[in-house]
């Protein structure tokens, strides 16, 4: 059999046919996706040039590109990105650790869980953005406040999801460990935690997004640098191209982190194949 890119790996003519169809569809979908993006940018650019879109307010792709290149060249861009990414990573790790710990506590002591329950619901429902000022007072005007905002936004979701996945572990698997005379710690270590791991890892994808939101909110509040700061600053000096560039970079960074965690997830769960 002669194979081309579309039928590589085929096990038989029928399979080749199947793979070709499937891969053609994937190519089609990718094309459609790219088309959407390109059309969007193109319409924006043309609209701005023709004056249909207020290029003063919305800037335009070419200007944003120029701004990007000039800031990259002058080395003023990357530090902002690193700071935001770094804050997100720290907030994300802290939030995940704190949330998981809390979930473990609640799992280990259901009474504690019931006592804390209304407070957790309350804290979860509370818009953390509104707490910003308290954060400044409590954690100062820098890194710590930003990271804490990221933690505050992600911690309860982590606790809830992790605890739920602990609770949903098949009761018979727990019984299995108990029939071997295993105690609570054995149950946790041998069954509950590994069984919940996939869920925990897939929450991380959501969590990194939440942490990022927290960091941006935090940067709006107190930053001296970072992508959130660029937005505030851009508005202050009325450089809307800078604002748009920062927005694009936020999109870019959030996609980047999402995929980094997705990659991590796949690596850690490779026993599933």
């Amino acid at each position, binding site marked *: 059999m002669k194979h081309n890119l579309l039928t590589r790996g085929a096990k038989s003519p029928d399979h080749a046919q199947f793979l070709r169809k499937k891969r053609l569809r994937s190519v089609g979908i990718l094309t459609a996706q790219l088309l959407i993006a390109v059309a969007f940018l193109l319409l924006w650019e043309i609209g701005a040039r023709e004056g249909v879109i207020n290029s003063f307010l919305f800037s335009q792709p070419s200007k944003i590109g120029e701004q990007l290149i000039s800031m990259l060249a002058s080395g003023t861009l990357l530090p902002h990105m690193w700071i935001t990414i770094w804050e997100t990573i720290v907030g994300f790790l802290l939030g995940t650790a704190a949330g998981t710990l809390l979930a473990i506590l609640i799992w280990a002591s259901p009474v504690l869980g019931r006592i804390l329950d209304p407070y957790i619901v309350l804290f979860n429902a509370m818009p953390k953005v509104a707490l910003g000022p308290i954060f400044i007072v409590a954690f100062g005007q820098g890194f710590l406040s930003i990271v804490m905002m990221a933690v505050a936004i992600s911690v309860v979701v982590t606790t809830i999801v992790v605890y739920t996945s602990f609770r949903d572990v098949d009761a018979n698997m727990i019984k299995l460990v108990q029939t071997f005379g295993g105690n609570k710690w054995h149950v946790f270590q041998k069954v509950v935690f590994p069984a919940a791991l996939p869920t925990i890892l897939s929450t991380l994808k959501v969590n990194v997004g939440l942490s990022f939101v927290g960091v941006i909110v935090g940067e709006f*509040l107190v930053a001296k640098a970072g992508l959130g700061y660029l937005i505030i*600053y851009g508005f202050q000096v009325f450089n809307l191209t800078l604002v748009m560039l920062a927005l694009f970079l936020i999109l870019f960074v959030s996609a980047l982190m999402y995929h980094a965690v997705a990659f991590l997830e796949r690596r850690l769960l490779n026993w599933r194949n």
Partner: protein
Amino acid sequence: PSDNSASEEKLTQVRVSEVIRSIFYAPQYVAIEQGYFKSEGLDIQLDTAWGGDKAMTRLLADQADIALIGAETTVYVGQQGASDKVVNFAQVTQRDGSFLVARNKIDNWDWSMLKGKSLVGSRKGSMPEMVSEYVLKQNGVTPFSDVNIIQNITFDNQATAFASGTGDFLQAFEPSGAILEQAGQGYVVASFGQDSGKLPYTVFMAKASTIKSEPTTIQKFTNAVQKAQNFIHSSTPEEVAKVIQPYFEGVESKVLTAVIKRYQDGDAWAKDAVIDQEEFSNMLAIMKEAGELNADVSYQDLVNTEFAEKAKRQ
């Protein structure tokens, strides 16, 4: 051009929180860039709070030693009954820094042209808003009944909202006004500062306890501010622009110069750091007009001119 005679170790660290980053506060950047603070033995750690409330919070929470905010905040803090009052000690700007921007060029501006129109303003209780209402009243325009003032847009977004079609007029801060003009999106037709009279618009302030415990530092700080004020009043806009450019990354020097010129022409920057009683009373009157003054506050309690007077004499 900075004076490096004082060795690094001897410098006293002073944490300053500025309300926002603005060309309006050029004297402060000049004092830093020209080394005036350093030669006084001060090491300034400048931080932008992005909001008067936040800057004041930092001051109150001991996260900053000195804040650069509108003096009205000290009145608010005073009338809410803070035990450790916040005291104004050095004036930076003496007029409102905002301008009235129209959508089209208007040659013979008269405030009554605002009647029946809408104006994008600032939040209720903020100094620009109170000044705006005061100026309107002075010019026979009754706020809210004659002119619809849109008060609900965050400071950051007012110019954007105007440019996207909200309102007929905008109370603009620089560099937004200059950039709007440059882009042909609006035209400055009047200056609020011109019509409001002098007032302690933006000042350096500290907690009373800090002033009491660190008088020498406050004195040195005020001295440096005075030097910067002297520099600004004896230099061309281009020279000032060159000094403060590092603080305004992403702003064209053309715009910077134009804005500085406008402030110089408009007599926005105080010649000295002294906050005199007349100016302060003017501000209280404006606040009273706006209905935001609901307790008696005294000039003596909230203003300290000792340091500024001394700096002026040097």
